[in-house]
């Protein structure tokens, strides 16, 4: 069973590395949207510093949401998703491999580029480490919750707008705790409580969402 899991992970990663646009496009989107804010606001160092965590987090939210479409789309279209339901390993277990791959492909690059973008927004370095930490705990949750929504809409032709309607309200707790953590650090307090809360949400998402994803995929495949 674990063998199938690792094979699936390897396969998804390999496909992604052969089609690098999947990795690069969400990343470019992320960089571009973040750099739109200084252009719109003006080169106001104090203001940018103040809203930088919010900008980065909201943009990361949107970038993750846009990248979700790749998660099941091609497998759904060429029928390999149907084959996956026939494997002896449960679908709820297998989807975690796909989500892990998806997070490595889209979540991790976002986190790696964040320190550079934080510099563009004049964010002090001591906050950057917390920012990266919140993204590290937060983005897997975003992938897991988003996977439920994409599993529900994968069979639809115009799933995009509906996906955002489904997914954004569910993303709000993660956004709130992440930005609260950063505000705390900015004011010289510890962000431990918020980070612990985000980690709790992640654990909850890991334990519950695979079942919802599997059930949703089965409805979509119907």
């Amino acid at each position, binding site marked *: 069973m674990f063998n199938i899991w690792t094979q699936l992970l390897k396969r998804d990663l390999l496909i992604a590395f052969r089609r690098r646009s999947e990795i690069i496009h969400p990343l470019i989107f992320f960089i571009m949207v973040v750099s739109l804010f200084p252009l719109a606001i003006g080169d106001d160092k104090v203001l940018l510093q103040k809203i930088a965590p919010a900008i980065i987090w909201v943009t990361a939210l949107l970038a993750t949401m846009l990248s979700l479409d790749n998660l099941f789309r091609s497998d759904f279209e060429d029928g390999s998703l149907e084959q996956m339901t026939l494997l002896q390993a449960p679908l709820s277990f297998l989807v975690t491999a796909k989500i892990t791959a998806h997070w490595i492909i889209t979540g991790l690059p976002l986190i790696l580029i964040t320190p550079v973008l934080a510099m563009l927004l004049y964010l002090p370095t001591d906050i950057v480490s917390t920012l990266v930490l919140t993204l590290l705990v937060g983005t897997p949750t975003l992938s897991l919750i988003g996977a439920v929504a994409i599993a529900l809409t994968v069979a639809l032709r115009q799933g995009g707008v509906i996906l955002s309607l*489904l997914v954004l*309200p569910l993303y709000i707790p993660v956004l709130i705790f992440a930005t609260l953590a950063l505000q705390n650090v900015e004011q010289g307090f510890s962000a431990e409580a918020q980070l612990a809360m985000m980690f709790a949400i992640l654990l909850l998402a890991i334990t519950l969402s695979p079942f919802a994803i599997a059930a949703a995929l089965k409805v979509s495949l119907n």
Partner: protein
Amino acid sequence: MKIVTNITRLYHQFASPPYFYRISGLWLPYIMGLCGLLFAYGLYSGLFLAPTDYEQGEAYRIIFVHVPAAWMSMFIYMVMAATGVIALVWRLKLAEIVMISCAPIGASFTFLALATGSIWGKPMWNTWWVWDARLTSELLLLFLYFGVMALYNAIEDRRTAARAVAILALVGVVNIPIIHYSVEWWNTLHQGPTVTKFDKPSIHLSMLIPLLVMAVAFKLFFIANLFMRVRTELLKREQNSKWVRALLELK
């Protein structure tokens, strides 16, 4: 054991579309009548009999609509999720229809709660809108309802759509407490609950009674509205079945 089997039989009977259609048709006038009476009494005693609040003046009277609407907005989501579970587990057509009929009613109540709250907020807080915890979670609840309705309308096959919506409603139910508390810790300005403190409600009895009457009236209004929606949907879906044809020929 006999009671259990009786209950299960009753349950299955109630879940069959023709039976539900007949029974709900019988109940509907009574529910609506009672609802009207309670509305009349609740509104009269709330707007005229209840004393004026010494801090908030006459403007507080909007709570007789606002608070029941807010209660209903959450209650209906719970009903939707519960019927969603029934729809997923037992694949009952009636449960699917009840679930999906809940969504627009719930969204309307949520909107009503937001609108009346905003009208109340103007004289009390001197602003139409604040990013207060309860207002925000109510707004997010409205978004959740919108998501449910959008998903249902996007999927062509009604039964597949209902199952997808049931999953979404369940995910939403798990998320509602998380959303609620995250928002609560984020920002709060709203006055604390004044009714649910069971030991000693900080609301005076002369205001509490009309409020509770209004709450029951809202609940009955919801049931009546739900029955009507479900009946229409049943007729639409089962238009080719024998019982609908018999019904139409009879009329």
